[in-house]
């Protein structure tokens, strides 16, 4: 599945919906005007007044609602009563959830999202947030207890599809707009009450009261009808997205049994997927299973969903009430106390496939979300990282030190001392000593593993308070510029870290993608292609590699390969703002072209990996770690 195209489509769809919505609001304003002119006779004055009043109220209400809903994934999860799972928890059930989410995130190249647990009996899950870098995943206790690992993986894959497809943005807009119309009916209700009250007291102003009552009735009816149809549309859109998410869950995990098994267990469970929390209604479209059941259902019926995945299903549900899943402690690596016990466990683990043994992947596959083998690879990748480092990544203090340690200068010890001094001066005591302690360990792992480490750091780092975050980004900047120059590794790390933590300035709409087309930006793109061609170890045929990429951008174009001197980091940096404004599918084409250039000599060198990783992060396109074919 192509989630870049899906994102573009979601964008187009929401434009259409906004247009339709504007027409509907105008229609509403007109009918209010007609109803009122029945009482006081039509006049231009009345026309403008009702028009401005109705549109003003609806616009205000919609905007307010959209703003409050778009406060980011964290706010949504918290208002649903979820509590944050600590990435360093030792509870086996929680550990298993976190492991599944981590694998999925690293396989799809997104930062590991914070996971919220809701103490609900029903089996359900949700994803919320505007973009992968502020998304959160929520899971109910029922989900943790009643599903096995495979099924949990299916559910998490379903949620990741929502994140990658940009479904949340569309849904938030829809919910906001509907709320604006429903608001009219609330006002109508208030007016009716006021009218009835004042009508009881003062009989003289018959006219005014009648008009008031009429206005109230009209607003009430229009608001209700509008809200009704709006909810129907929202539910229909949402149901389509659910089918899509189910399909991509199968595609990600290559395992239809996982997701269909989870759905079946919901069907055979007395608590189903119901939620107790009162705010569930507002967010019903975000969940895995339907939280409510009515014609406004945002999810297709279970039976239908299962049969789409598994046509030969015999229509029987398992007795979920009796099931309680046992967790394999060994394989979930519940880091005993403080990770001291982990070393002894690793020997008993089954051998994991090494990426070295993998053949080069076709670059078309890479941009299509995680696959079952990439998920396994991600797991193997996580397993290869030394466990003390991994444990540090799972809490805020250590995660910070890991990022610092990666940025220490490995070659020049004089600069390293200055960097340590900077950390010592700016931050809490012992930050510098811990950073120095893990320094050698951090630099002994491969480049791919370093970046997986950074993805792991993303979720605990979001627990930093704004002040701590500011301090952190100041120190990171300081460390990078300590030696008066930015090398490629530093550039790439900076892009990834700042993108994950949303430290870069984003547009107000929170939309990670723009709408500009590729055609006008071919020259901007060529800087990256040239850098990949020159520095990719294809010295002999840089020209060929470059042309291969350019051809994918625009078959008719031929561009002269820029000289190696013009491909500096400053040049790359300069072209980024324009690349960020590309539409999602233009970004996909561009990334495909980059991958083609990088892969021209059948291998992706570390330099190429760094350029690609930094670029993907800077333009908010998740790019998994598995495209690399280490040499």
């Amino acid at each position, binding site marked *: 599945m192509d989630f870049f195209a899906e994102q573009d489509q979601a964008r187009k769809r929401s434009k259409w919906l906004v247009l339709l919505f504007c027409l509907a609001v105008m229609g509403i304003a007109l009918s209010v005007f007609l109803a009122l002119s029945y009482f*006081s006779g039509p006049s231009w004055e*009345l026309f403008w007044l009702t028009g401005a009043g109705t549109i003003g109220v609806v616009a*205000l*209400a919609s905007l307010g609602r959209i703003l409050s809903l778009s406060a980011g994934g964290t706010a949504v999860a*918290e*208002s649903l009563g979820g509590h944050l799972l600590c990435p360093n928890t030792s509870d086996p059930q929680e550990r298993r959830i976190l492991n599944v989410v981590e694998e999925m995130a690293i396989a799809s190249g997104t930062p590991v999202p914070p996971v919220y647990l809701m103490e609900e009996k029903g089996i359900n899950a949700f994803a919320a947030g505007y973009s992968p870098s502020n998304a959160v995943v929520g899971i109910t206790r029922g989900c943790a207890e009643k599903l096995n690992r495979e099924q949990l993986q299916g559910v998490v894959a379903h949620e990741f599809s929502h994140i990658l497809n940009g479904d949340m943005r569309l849904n938030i807009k829809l919910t906001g707009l509907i709320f604006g119309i429903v608001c009219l009916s609330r006002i109508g209700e208030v007016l009716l009450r006021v009218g009835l009250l004042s009508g009881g007291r003062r009989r003289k102003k018959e006219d005014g009261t009648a008009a008031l009552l009429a206005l109230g009735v009209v607003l009430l009816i229009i608001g209700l009808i509008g809200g009704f149809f709006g909810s129907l549309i929202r539910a229909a859109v949402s149901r389509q997205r659910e089918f899509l998410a189910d399909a991509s869950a199968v595609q990600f995990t290559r395992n239809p049994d996982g997701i269909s098994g989870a759905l079946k267990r919901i069907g055979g469970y007395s608590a189903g997927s119901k939620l107790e929390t009162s705010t569930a209604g507002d967010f019903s479209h975000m969940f895995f299973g339907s939280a409510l059941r009515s014609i406004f259902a945002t999810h297709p019926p279970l039976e239908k969903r299962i049969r789409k995945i598994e046509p030969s299903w015999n229509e029987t549900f398992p007795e979920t009430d009796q099931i309680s899943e046992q967790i394999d402690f060994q394989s979930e690596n519940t880091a005993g106390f403080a990770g001291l016990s982990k070393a002894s466990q690793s020997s008993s683990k089954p051998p994991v496939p090494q990426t070295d043994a993998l053949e080069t992947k076709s670059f078309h596959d890479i941009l299509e979300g995680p696959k079952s083998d990439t998920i396994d690879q991600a797991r193997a990748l996580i397993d290869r990282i030394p466990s003390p480092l991994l444990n540090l990544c799972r*809490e*805020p203090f250590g995660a910070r030190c890991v990022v610092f340690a990666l940025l220490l200068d490995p070659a020049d010890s004089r600069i390293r001392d200055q960097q340590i001094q900077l950390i010592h001066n700016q931050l809490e005591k012992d930050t510098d000593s811990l950073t120095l302690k893990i320094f050698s360990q951090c630099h002994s792992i491969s480049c791919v593993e370093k970046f997986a480490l950074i993805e792991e750091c993303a979720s605990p780092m979001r627990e930093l*308070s704004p002040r*701590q975050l500011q301090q952190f980004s100041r120190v990171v900047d300081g460390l990078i510029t300590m030696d008066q120059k930015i090398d490629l590794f530093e550039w790439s790390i900076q892009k990834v870290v700042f993108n994950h933590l949303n430290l870069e300035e984003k547009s107000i709409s929170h939309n990670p993608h723009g709408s500009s087309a590729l055609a006008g930006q071919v020259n901007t793109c060529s800087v990256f292609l040239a850098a990949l061609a020159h520095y990719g170890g294809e010295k002999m045929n840089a020209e060929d590699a470059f042309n291969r990429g350019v051809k994918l951008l625009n078959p008719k174009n031929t561009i002269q390969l820029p000289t190696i001197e013009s491909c500096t980091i400053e040049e790359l940096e300069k072209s980024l703002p324009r690349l960020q404004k590309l539409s999602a599918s233009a970004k996909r084409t561009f990334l495909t072209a980059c991958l083609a250039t990088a892969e021209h000599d059948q291998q992706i060198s570390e330099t190429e990996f760094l350029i690609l990783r930094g670029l993907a992060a800077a333009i908010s396109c998740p790019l998994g770690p598995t495209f690399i074919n280490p040499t």
Partner: protein
Amino acid sequence: MSSTIITLIVLGVISLVILFTVIGIYNKLVTLKNRFENAFSQIEVQLQRRYDLIPNLIETVKGYMAHEKDTLEAVIQARNQAQSSLQAASQNPGDAGAMAGLAGAEGLLGGALGKIFALSESYPDLKANQNMANLQEELSSTENKVAFSRQAFNDAVTSYNTYKQTFPPVIVAGMFGHGQDATLLEFESEKIKEAPKVQF
């Protein structure tokens, strides 16, 4: 007639604006409160890890410090006390009583642990014990993590309190059950030490 309608529409819009502001304030209060409550869970995990390490420490030390039984007893007691205070505090983060209880218990535990480490200096065998060295390092590194998460928690509490005291939230906060300020979590050892009194 038409002036009635104008007044009504104006009134309607104004009351709607007020309604939305109030809803917005309420939501923001809830969000900020949730934020610091969630920030507490990171402190909880680290403290719990510390409490889990202490029995191991006692086990290791016991063989060497046979005749310091009272000191060891004191540590275990302080640990149990701190653990129950932590449970109370995690039920109600930001509550003045719970925070004071936890800070007090932590202070006692810190003191008792300090005593053990000071005593261990006079047992060369114990100092050479690898397990002891690991535990000591583990304990001190959790302490740093606790201090760091506590800072995040205190920042979150402060921003909740500040928001609550600004205008207009100050008018409605009390009505929505956000009347009480949340309390910061300060540990004894971290407080700025008082200047020593000079006596003549």
